[in-house]
């Protein structure tokens, strides 16, 4: 009698749990499809031959399909040059960002608690200033520095660590390293720079990774800054090139989507490569902030 009752409850509990799990999986799948659809539709249009009538019905894989749009983008605008400029900016800006931000974070971890708190507060205030609120004076500054229409205007923020957020990420990582390690290195006669490069950096792999990816995405995708500072076509980066493509022909959808895919692909590849660092709640940047 007793056992029967227990069996009944555990069976109903189990079926309820199963139902719950099924509902969660269905919802998750629907959401994932919703978030992936825009990218799928972009891909689908990018392999459609130019000049054919546009479909009046939903299609997933165009018939016939072609990859020639991807080549044609390079003929219509100077896409290869734009890609080279984007690469130039990111390849220089990302390592400099890593060096400057990690150095600043390391230094902030070493100074007195009082000053650390003050600097953290200042960094937070700086984080709250949106780009729109500083672009006029920054433009005037770039003009005075003679950096207008130079790719270095896009790289400049890297020399200051790019974002206070990256410095804070490094600070939070380094404060979790037991202090004796750095103390021991100092007693062994290692200078601050050697302690930073030889001990602190190797200990902060996930943070280096996270900041590298975040700053890569930032420099690669940046649209407003080149829009303000870059004037000649030969110095444009990919996002501006995409806008140029749109201005050439607003209705050539296959070509536009092929361009959009090519600008997006590197970012997605880097993200998928590093996604564990972001989305695993045991390691992600949210975690680093604790």
């Amino acid at each position, binding site marked *: 009698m007793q056992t029967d009752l227990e069996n009944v409850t555990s069976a109903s509990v189990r079926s309820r749990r199963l139902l719950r799990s099924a509902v969660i*999986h269905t919802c*998750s*799948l629907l*959401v*994932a499809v919703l*978030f992936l659809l*825009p*990218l799928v*539709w*972009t891909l*689908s*249009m990018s392999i459609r031959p130019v000049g054919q009538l*546009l*479909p*009046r019905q*939903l299609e997933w894989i165009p018939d016939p399909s072609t990859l020639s749009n991807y080549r044609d983008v390079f003929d219509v605008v100077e896409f290869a040059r734009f890609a080279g400029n984007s690469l130039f900016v990111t390849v220089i800006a990302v390592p400099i960002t890593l060096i*400057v931000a990690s150095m600043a974070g390391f230094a902030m971890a070493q*100074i007195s608690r009082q000053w650390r708190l003050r*600097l953290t507060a200042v960094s937070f205030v*700086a984080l*709250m*200033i*949106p*780009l729109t*609120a*500083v*672009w*006029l*004076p*920054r*433009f*005037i500054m770039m003009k005075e520095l003679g950096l207008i229409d130079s790719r270095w205007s896009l790289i400049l923020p890297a020399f*200051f*660590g790019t974002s*206070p957020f990256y*410095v804070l990420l490094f600070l939070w990582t380094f404060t979790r390293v037991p202090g004796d390690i750095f103390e021991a290195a100092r007693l062994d006669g290692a200078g601050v*720079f050697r302690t*930073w490069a030889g001990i602190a950096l190797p200990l902060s792999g996930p943070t280096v990774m996270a900041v590298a990816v975040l700053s890569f995405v930032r420099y690669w*995708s940046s*649209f*407003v800054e080149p829009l303000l500072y870059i004037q000649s076509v030969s110095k444009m980066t990919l*996002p501006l090139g*995409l*806008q140029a493509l749109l201005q050439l022909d607003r209705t050539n*959808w296959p070509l*536009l*989507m092929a*361009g*959009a895919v090519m*600008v*997006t692909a590197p*970012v*997605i590849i880097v*993200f998928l490569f590093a*996604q564990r660092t972001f989305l*695993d*709640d045991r390691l*992600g940047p*949210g975690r680093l*902030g604790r």
Partner: protein
Amino acid sequence: MLAPFLIGMLLLEFIPAIAHLPLAFTSYNALESPDFIGLDNFRELIHDRVFWIAAGNSLLFIVVAVPLRIGGAMLLSLLLLERRRGTAFYRAAIYLPTVVPDIAWALAWLWILNPLYGPLNLTLAWLGLPSPALTIGEWPPRFAIIVVLAFQLGEGFVVCLAALSDMPRDLRDQAAVDGSTGRQTFWRITLPLLAPTLIVLLLRDVIVSLQSNFVPALIIGRNGGPNYATTYLPYYIYREAFSYLRFGYAAAMTWMMFLLTGLVLLLLYRVARSWRMGFSDAD
């Protein structure tokens, strides 16, 4: 070792932010040295119809888009908090639109929203639903830009996930044992514990909203149109400064934007504080 960072913050963030003040009282045009014109810029601003439209648009955008983004991020993080099969895939799918470059994302949506051939309307037609022309008219593009940007909520999603997984599990388990329903557990335990994180996200998203709609307004709204319907403050400031070289006027507008944001943040902070107190009373 700190010097580059500190100099950078001063030079690229704080000095530019403050430099608006003197600039707003001049007729600077980036070519000649500035002339002091007193309050003329502000006087003009008050009678500038487009400025008030843009301020209203920005305010409306904040009021609708920010709660949508933060609420969405919270719900999705609750859905995907527990690790099951496929969780990693679902989380990656949700974050993906956030890393897509703004211009590529806006361009993709310009196609998706195309009234005649766009996949969105074709899908709606296939489902037997009416097909709205979302890039035409005044209200549809406003609505479309909010939806387009609602997809890029990855940051809030990750922060909510981290905050939720930090919460002691026993607390919720205990509540369940004590007979609390899922809904009660959410309102009485999860939400109050998540509140500080949500407030920080809200404040940050209000600020981010001031620039996030710049690219969609340019691409989907076709330069802030039609009839200024998608002209938000950043776009109007950009146009005055960089198309018409009216830096002084644009600086005055930036000050008004600061003021507006400050008011919204203050209001939000007040509401958030009383909201949290309401929760502690209930305990």
